């Protein structure tokens, strides 16, 4: 019987090596896999390239991973946050690299990687500084930029409900990039707020099929970045 369940967040992230490319689900604090991120801080892998829409909040979760000096490069659409100074300070000090990608292009690059499509054309960013150095081509009289797929070695994902096969459902806008990242990473690691027995999720309601998921670890009552920040907490 296939069982992708992993006993702890520590074991789930234990084989992430230095230099890995890691996708992190979440949009701001919504859907952020905080427990997996904290386990990655404890694990200590360094020189990481991290893909997320943002750069974390406060000094917890992704911001804490960055603040701990484990991230060499961020690939994101919106690296500013009203709630975090961690990334801006490192960036201005020249201690972290940044690749800014328009949000839809970021999503589509990840989706393309999961779908086995090495490149695609989009009008997004035509005529802007983000088009510099990119191949362009005209289709039906309009200019488009070629964008490459974006793959990762690992994805860290938070979901609402999972079964041992890795079938997943999400909670509201906590879904965001996560289903795409599950498809695009070689190894997808999921923290589930609820882990239920096989057959206990209606097949019509499953958002991410388990074929895209490698490890599931149950994290009941997960912490939320906004609550941690309101309590003045930091993770280090």
């Amino acid at each position, binding site marked *: 019987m296939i069982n992708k369940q992993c006993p702890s967040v520590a074991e789930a992230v234990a084989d992430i090596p230095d230099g890995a490319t890691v996708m992190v689900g979440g949009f701001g604090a919504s859907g952020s896999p905080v427990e997996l991120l904290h386990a990655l801080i404890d694990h200590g892998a360094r020189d990481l390239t991290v893909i997320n829409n943002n750069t974390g909040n406060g000094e917890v979760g992704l911001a804490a991973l960055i603040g701990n000096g484990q991230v060499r490069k961020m690939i994101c659409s919106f690296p500013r946050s009203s709630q975090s100074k961690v990334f801006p300070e490192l960036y201005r000090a020249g201690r972290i690299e940044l690749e800014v990608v328009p949000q839809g292009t970021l999503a589509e690059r990840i989706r393309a990687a999961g779908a086995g499509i090495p490149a695609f054309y989009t009008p997004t960013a035509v005529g802007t500084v983000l088009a510099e150095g990119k191949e362009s081509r005209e289709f039906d009289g309009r200019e488009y930029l070629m964008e490459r797929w974006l793959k990762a070695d690992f994805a860290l994902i938070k979901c609402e409900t999972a079964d041992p096969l890795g079938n997943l459902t999400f909670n509201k806008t906590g879904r965001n990039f996560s289903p795409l990242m599950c498809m695009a990473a070689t190894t997808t690691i999921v923290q589930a707020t609820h882990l239920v027995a096989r057959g206990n999720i209606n097949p019509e309601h499953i958002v991410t099929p388990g074929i895209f998921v490698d490890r599931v670890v149950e994290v009941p009552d997960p912490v*939320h970045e906004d609550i941690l920040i309101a309590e003045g907490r930091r993770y280090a």
Partner: protein
Amino acid sequence: MSHGWTREQMAARAAHDIPDGAYVNLGIGIPELVTQFVPEGREFIYHTENGMLGMGPPPTEDERDLDLMNAGKKYVTELPGAVYFHHADSFSMIRGGHIDVCVLGTMQVAENGDIANWSTGAPDAIPAVGGAMDLVQGVEKIYVITQHTTKTGEPKLVGRCSYPLTGAGVVSRIFTDLAVVDVTPDGFQVVELAPGVDFDEVQQKTGAPIRPPA
């Protein structure tokens, strides 16, 4: 006597130009006020880039779900008929031309429809584009709500944008505190003047030639 439109009146004027049944994406700032001024008898369905159609107003403390946010990372609610989806579907709605109207704030708009609203290009600025470049390319009608000038009196409607572009030739209509202005193949065209505003003032505060209302 009143002179010009307030932020709320600018939002109401923009709402007036959005048709019943439109799928609408609102930027941060004054555009968010559009939800308060939906004309009687019309329904707009609000899209947020982070994966939702049918977004409702901010929650009470009891209603709040920590995962339910809008693209500005503010807590929101779901209206009956709301739906959630992942980011690739969300941006397929944008890039595939399915969102009818997008209302954005801006730093500058040029007479050729170029818009600059994501970066000042300053050397120490941290570039942060979000979904702005996708929205301006993918949504058919790009409306802009903005003060006519900056706080220091510089025109925001200009001949050519000096800030880095978000998109080239994409803006349809501009709602300012002084006027409603269309971007036409021949440049800026005043559609309507705000109460107490005369055309000479609009012309003087615009950084490019502008034509009076027909």
